[in-house]
């Protein structure tokens, strides 16, 4: 892989890894945040 094309191949894989990392983290954090918020409100309102 250390050939003349490495400068194109590795950035493509790095961008993909970053893209997936963003999608996974943003999705999990968003789900956790809203679940906690809804559950806190349910407790507050006695539901």
């Amino acid at each position: 892989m250390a050939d003349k094309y490495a400068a194109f191949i590795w950035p493509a894989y790095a961008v993909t890894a970053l893209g997936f990392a963003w999608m996974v983290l943003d999705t999990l954090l968003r789900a956790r945040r809203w679940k906690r918020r809804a559950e806190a409100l349910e407790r507050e309102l006695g539901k």
Partner: protein
Amino acid sequence: MLASLANPHRFMGFSRWAAPLCGLIALAFLIPGLWLGFAAPEDYQQGATVRIMFIHVPAAWISMFAYACLGGASFFSLVFRHALADAAARAVAPLGAAFTLLALVTGSLWGRPEWGTWWVWDARLTSVLVLFLLFIGYMALRSAIDDETRAGRAAAILALVGLINLPIVKFSVDWWNTLHQGESIFRKGGPTIATVFLIPLALMGFGYLFAFGALWLERTRAEVWRRRARNLEAQAAA
């Protein structure tokens, strides 16, 4: 199955185990896909750059599939006024934009050594850029209108109008003379690429598909929780 899952309570019960399961299945495809992709020989014409295909092509497939999902969810939201369909549509748009951006960037990184240019305004590349702008436009429109119901309806209309772009993306390489290569997988007569490349590509394609499924389910769950929290906030304020 779909009618049953239209019930938000049933959907939350189903997605609680289906989302992580899809994530695990995605890993089960992606790990051997990556392994075989890097173990595959270099292409006789493209050399090692053929390895970009294993991440570029699945991203392009999923970007189109995500838009089809956005269109389908928008249709059910608009016609049947189904809240879960609207939540699913809102949840899929950022994922679609991300996969489309990945397809564009990795395609550009593949195009530079193969074509000698990062970008060209040919029909395939331009129609995929339009696809990306449609996802961005959908999200921007939803954010621009305060009333969530009105925002959802306006964005659903935009999503449905944008469906016309899907066949343009798919057939652009047939209808116009493009620098982008023609269809080599989903074509009459079967795939034209060598098996040694087709197997890792198929594994990566399924991996991307299940990863997209896991993320979409989880984001839709987050959207259901967000709406629940908003309703409870309104009750608390009343």
